[in-house]
């Protein structure tokens, strides 16, 4: 009946957001491309895609964590410590690449469990908890290197970050894999439904038998594992495990998730939207390079974009609430 007239609210908000972001990205490519033709080339797009891919891997998990009403600031530290752990094991302990990679992932698993249990079981504040584990992990990454970063890796390890398939680097394929897999889980699987329910109404979900603590712990572990994976792959890609390699990832990823429709309050968020937000942020840095803008300004512009995004979101939602209530 009226179902066709009034489409579902959540659905339409998500859809319009994705549509708006596609339009925004398209307009951006067109605008900058017309000014600087070198920007809108396949080569540059591949560079953008490569830079994007590392963040996109973590983003897929982070959007789920945001949907569950949590977030994780420890991403940079976890990635650094995992990369350094794998790197040092290969360079200074003669451990094989496979075992070194597994050790790096184990670091992620451990920190993810600490984050998850501290927040979900002990009830610590997620901001302070993940800030603390970020500090601890990045400090440990710096301390372990003793000042010189490991770089002497076997070729089989480099391959993890440098091989190509269908003319695209492996990291881009990793990102594709995780984005598709996690987007399907979030949107269509029971775990995804419970993720939104946990973030949208923790107590209500708990009383209906949703294991809200388990959802939270699972997602903290997921984000930390993805971060660890990125730390290892990034080291393989650039040939060095540096403690500051991915500095700034966490905040950019959370910002992209919010631009893409997630809210820190939980219950909302889409991986595709977050990916489009990330693409926009990434294209801005690239455009700045071509337009000769000081990269330092990019951070400032990203901040303004984030502010505009959340302001527009709040405005649209208020508009909707005033028009909405009782009209169903």
């Amino acid at each position, binding site marked *: *009946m*009226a*179902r066709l007239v*009034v*489409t*579902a*609210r*959540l*659905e339409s908000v998500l859809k319009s957001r994705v549509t708006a972001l596609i339009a925004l990205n398209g307009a951006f490519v067109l605008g900058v491309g017309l000014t600087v033709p070198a920007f809108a080339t396949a080569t540059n797009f591949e560079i953008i895609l490569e830079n994007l891919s590392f963040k996109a891997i973590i983003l897929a998990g982070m959007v789920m964590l945001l949907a569950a009403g949590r977030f994780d600031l420890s991403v940079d530290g976890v990635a650094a410590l995992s990369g350094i752990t794998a790197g040092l094991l290969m360079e200074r302990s003669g451990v094989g690449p496979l075992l070194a990679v597994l050790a790096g992932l184990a670091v992620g698993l451990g920190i993810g469990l600490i984050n998850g249990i501290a927040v979900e079981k002990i009830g610590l504040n997620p901001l302070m908890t993940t800030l603390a584990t970020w500090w601890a992990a990045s400090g440990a990454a710096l301390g372990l290197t003793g000042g010189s970063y490991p770089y002497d890796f076997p070729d089989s390890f480099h391959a993890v970050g440098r091989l190509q398939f269908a003319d695209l680097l492996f990291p881009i394929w990793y990102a594709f894999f995780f984005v598709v897999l996690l987007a399907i889980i979030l949107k*269509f*699987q*029971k775990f*995804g*439904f*419970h993720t*939104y*329910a946990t973030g*949208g*109404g923790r*107590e*209500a*979900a708990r*009383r*209906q*038998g*949703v294991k809200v603590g388990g959802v939270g712990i699972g997602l903290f572990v997921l984000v930390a594992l993805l971060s660890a994976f990125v730390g290892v792959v990034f080291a393989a890609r650039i040939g060095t495990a540096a403690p500051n390699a991915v500095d700034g990832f966490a905040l950019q990823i959370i910002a992209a998730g919010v631009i893409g429709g997630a809210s820190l309050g939980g*219950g*909302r968020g889409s991986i595709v939207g977050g990916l489009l937000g990330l693409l926009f942020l990434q294209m801005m840095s690239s455009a700045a390079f071509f337009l000769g803008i000081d990269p330092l300004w990019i951070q400032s512009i990203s901040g303004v974009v984030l502010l505009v995004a959340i302001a527009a979101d709040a405005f649209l939602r208020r508009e909707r609430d005033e028009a*909405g*209530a*009782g*009209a*169903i």
Partner: protein
Amino acid sequence: MQSSVKSEHGETARTPVIEVRGAAKSYGSIRALDGIDFAMNPGEVHALVGDNGAGKSTLLKILSGAIKPTAGTIYMDGRRVNLDNPQDSLDLGVATVYQDLALVPVLPIPENIFLGREPTRYGFVQRRRMVRAARDLFESLGQMNIRNIEASVADLSGGQRQAVALARAIHGGGRALLLDEPTAALGVRESEAMLELIESLKTPQHAIVIVSHNLAHVFRVSDRITVLRRGVKAGTAIREGTTTEEIVSLMTGATSASGEER
């Protein structure tokens, strides 16, 4: 099923869906509830009334498995059961609609109705099935006037939200429905719709308890009224055989337990 049993004298006596005998609950030296006998009969709306602190919510929580009684036994369909936690009660078909409804506002109606027990196939949630079931459910409930079944609960009125919570309780296979203050948050028109909804649920499959402060609403829908006062049962009356005055005097203690009947 075993909703009716012939007694020796040949009259039909119904086996209560749930019956508690001698239920008591103490918190340290505080006695919240003592020696309560209470039955929910199929096809019947049983109202639980009493002043604040009379023990209504304590009794409701015992039935919903949220708290464990210190003494007393619980029977379902005549068989002794333990309701140690909310899941036990849910599994046995006892569904509670809490006063705060326990809904997730950002999510659409079908997600809320199936919250915690989404139908899946190969791990994938059968969303279309959920939407269809939600629509059927609301059509059968009739009067709540929800035009868009995929609306978020945040966009619904208080009465519509109440209906979503009720639909969830029914859909979960709830045979015993516990409704905590179902009209307290509603306006006049929505209260009326909710009362009609409760009346429409008066089928041989369901036994309903409503806890309410509103005696007009209680008299409107219930078949039986139990009055609690300071943790003990002040009396149970058949609706047709009693008056508001009598119930009020039981609530305030002006009359002591009399005309006890189950």
